[in-house]
């Protein structure tokens, strides 16, 4: 496999026992993982083709412990890789031999809920879904809903600026975080933002959200919670061609309608997901849109009537509305389990480029050509409203030649996304996976400015240093 890691700092590796002893003094007895067996659980994330055994794994329970660990590591030149649940598809949480993993999973409490101000304070290790579950009895929720929401943490969501199926209406993580408590590389604890709807001074939250653990360790977050709509109803629209489905999406938005979600699946993705979830997806179409609307029954009826009218103008072949909560759940289960269901039939690489939605027909055609060129198959799921593509390239992980081809096909697809005016990653992050493609999207001046900003927070590049920026040509403070 083609992605390089930096050569470990042998001086640090040689001092392993000493460093473990130093860290042990700062943590509760069960807060430090050092044995080979236990460390192995932390050697990769959801980019399982790559593995690195970390020097040790620290599992703090308080912000103060995090601060003490950071101060120790800063003084001793030990690198630190932050980790939530380890669900990164981009290798963002993979460690290295001369670095500790700082896992936030034990910090998973809800600290405060304020319904009047529609805010909630949580620790960074709480799962995305647990936030919504906590306020669901009062009919509130936290909006970004990545497919991995059952497992992934808010800290990881902040690191990767995660999205989900419903961000067409509600935005991504950066639009739903009001403040963070963060430990800087030297152990200083800072408060950024708060419960107000904007913050004083520079917009550091903009930098922190999506920074992939390179600016500091977020230990607490103040998130925006929203009141649930009265009802929500997904509708399935089947089309004979992807072009018709794409044109239908554009026409809906053009008509002034913003559905809460518009999800696209191609034929292979439909088959895979239907076999797994039995959601009633039509199997005789080339493209499927799941369009969800919200509101009262009358409002949903009215909005859907408008959408159906538009879909008919674009040759829709089948229309099927959810008639019950169970059907709704099955429809979303099918879509949200697309990655897992695909994993049942083959190994896959999940791509995450974003394109201007008008380029969809062209990009689908070119992706088909690219994967055929490498002799591979691709299943497409796609956040159609916002242009975020998730082609799943199927391959056999035990065949090194096919694995190499899958990686190359993925790279070609991402370059295509940039060429048509999009970007390398919409919601999964750069990690190691797209690190070496950054120069396709940015020139040296763009990257230089980003790296100088990074260095303001971490002059010695101790925080998650193998990620995001190409390993050559790095700029320190």
């Amino acid at each position, binding site marked *: 496999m083609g992605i390089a890691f930096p050569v470990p700092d042998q001086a640090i590796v040689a001092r392993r026992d000493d460093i473990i002893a130093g860290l042990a003094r700062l943590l509760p007895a069960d807060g430090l993982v050092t044995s080979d067996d236990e460390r192995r659980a932390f050697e990769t994330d959801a980019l399982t083709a790559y593995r690195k055994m970390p020097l040790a794994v620290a599992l703090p329970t308080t912000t103060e412990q995090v601060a003490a660990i950071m101060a120790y590591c800063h003084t001793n030149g030990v690198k630190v890789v932050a980790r939530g649940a380890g669900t990164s598809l981009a290798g963002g949480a993979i460690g290295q031999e001369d670095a500790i993993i700082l896992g936030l999973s034990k910090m998973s409490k809800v600290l405060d809920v304020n319904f009047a101000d529609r805010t909630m304070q949580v620790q960074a290790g709480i799962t995305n879904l647990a936030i919504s579950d906590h306020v669901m009895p009062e009919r509130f929720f936290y909006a970004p809903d990545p497919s991995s929401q059952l497992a992934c943490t808010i800290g990881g969501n902040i690191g990767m600026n995660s999205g989900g199926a419903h961000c067409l209406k509600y935005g991504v993580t950066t639009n739903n975080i009001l403040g963070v408590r963060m430990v800087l590389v030297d152990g200083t604890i800072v408060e950024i933002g708060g419960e107000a*709807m904007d913050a004083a001074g520079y917009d550091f939250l903009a930098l922190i959200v999506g920074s992939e653990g390179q600016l500091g360790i977020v230990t607490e977050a103040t998130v925006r919670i929203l009141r649930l709509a009265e009802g929500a109803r997904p509708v399935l629209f089947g089309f004979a061609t992807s072009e018709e489905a794409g044109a239908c999406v554009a026409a809906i938005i053009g008509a002034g309608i913003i559905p809460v979600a518009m999800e696209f699946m191609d034929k292979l993705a439909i088959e895979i997901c239907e076999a797994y979830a039995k959601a009633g997806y039509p199997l005789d179409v080339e493209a499927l849109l799941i369009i969800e609307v919200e509101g009262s029954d009358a409002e949903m009826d009215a*909005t859907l009537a408008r959408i159906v009218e538009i879909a008919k103008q674009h040759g829709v072949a089948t229309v099927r509305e959810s008639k019950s909560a169970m059907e709704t759940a099955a429809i979303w289960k099918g879509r949200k389990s697309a990655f897992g269901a695909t994993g049942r039939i083959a190994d896959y690489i999940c791509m995450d480029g974003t394109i201007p939605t008008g380029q969809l027909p062209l990009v689908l055609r070119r992706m088909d050509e690219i994967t055929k060129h490498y002799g591979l198959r691709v299943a497409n799921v796609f956040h159609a409203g916002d242009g975020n593509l998730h082609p799943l390239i199927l391959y056999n992980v035990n065949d090194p030649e096919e694995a190499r081809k899958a990686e190359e096909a993925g790279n070609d697809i991402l370059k295509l996304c940039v060429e048509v005016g999009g970007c390398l990653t919409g919601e999964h992050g750069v990690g190691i996976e797209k690190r070496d493609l950054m120069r396709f999207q940015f020139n040296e001046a763009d990257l230089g400015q980003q790296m100088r900003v990074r260095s303001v927070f971490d002059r010695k590049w101790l925080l998650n240093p193998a990620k995001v920026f190409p390993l050559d040509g790095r700029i320190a403070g």
Partner: protein
Amino acid sequence: MTALTPTCDEDIIEAIRLARSERSSIAVEGQGTKRLMGRPMQAKRVLSMQAMTGITLYEPAELVLSAKSGTPVAEVEATLAARGQMLPFEPMDYRPLLGSSGEPTMGGLTATNLSGPRRIMAGACRDSLIGTRFVNGQGEVIKSGGRVMKNVTGLDLARTMAGSWGTLGVLTEVTYKLLPRPETTLSVVFHGLNDQQAVALMAAAIGSPFEVSGAAHLPVGIDRIAMTLLRLEGFAESLAYRAERLRVLLAPFGRCDIIDQTASTSLWAQIRDVRWFAEPRNEAVWRISVPPSKAPALLAQIAAGRRIRHLLDWGGGLVWIATASTELAGSEVIRQAVRHAKGHALLVRASEGARGTDGTFEPLAPAVLKLSTGLKKSFDPDHVLNPGRMYSGI
């Protein structure tokens, strides 16, 4: 001050090169409509972006627009309105409050992160900002973000430019995501509530499923009888339904009336621009951002023993205060009350002397100030661009 009017990136780069070689500074602006806000500057040159104009990309079906930074906001809004779309965040117009003239530009709007009443539903200016091009203080052209709304490729420098007041770079182009313009609008109004009741009502309304896109309270002093306003936007049939449900939900707060589209639209423009504080000109005006539920106590603390006027937007999360004097009298009280409420305050209108002290923007915690100094240095190491516009030394 010498005025420079660049027409291309090279002109900006040359101006920065010259300033660096002379160790002088540059004041960056569009048409200068917000020159009277923030800390005043003694720059050798003023760089006005007013000649770099034009919409460079508009894709209605993708809800995205790019414009050069000198493009008047009015031109963008008119172009969008013609296709039934809008900037989501309803940018305010500071001209009435500041008594300034000229046309607000897209660059100025971005640099000051201008968000209006719809912020409670559609997010702030920075939330819709998805791409920027700018020239940093080293004369390098930098792009960040792009034209797609989901993008986590590298650090989000694009959004960082929002609210940076021209201190990090000279914006040359900005890209925003858009929303469809609502088919129609109306407001539900309650009368005679005090601040505390009004904030409770607005919290209940925004926390309902009925999609309130504006929640403001105009207390006695703005009008003879206090008005608490809830704005609804969307399709006509949906509006009637939601207004009725709000009437039932909020019945404990009293009887309500409906304000129709025309009157509602004009009223919300007045709220957005805080028209009632335009005169008298010698009053100081503060813009305070707080967790909404803290607004009533904050106001009580500030109003104790002095005459102020105020109004609430964002359900109480945005507090506008006008005080009797343009001098800093009372500013310590305001700063203290704001700190207590965990908010922040911007002294929007005051004499040059008053704004020249470090009391214009909210003082920063030492660790955040240190990061801010570092951030400034990483973009503009020689302090060429708008030095001191936000904070001394930045």
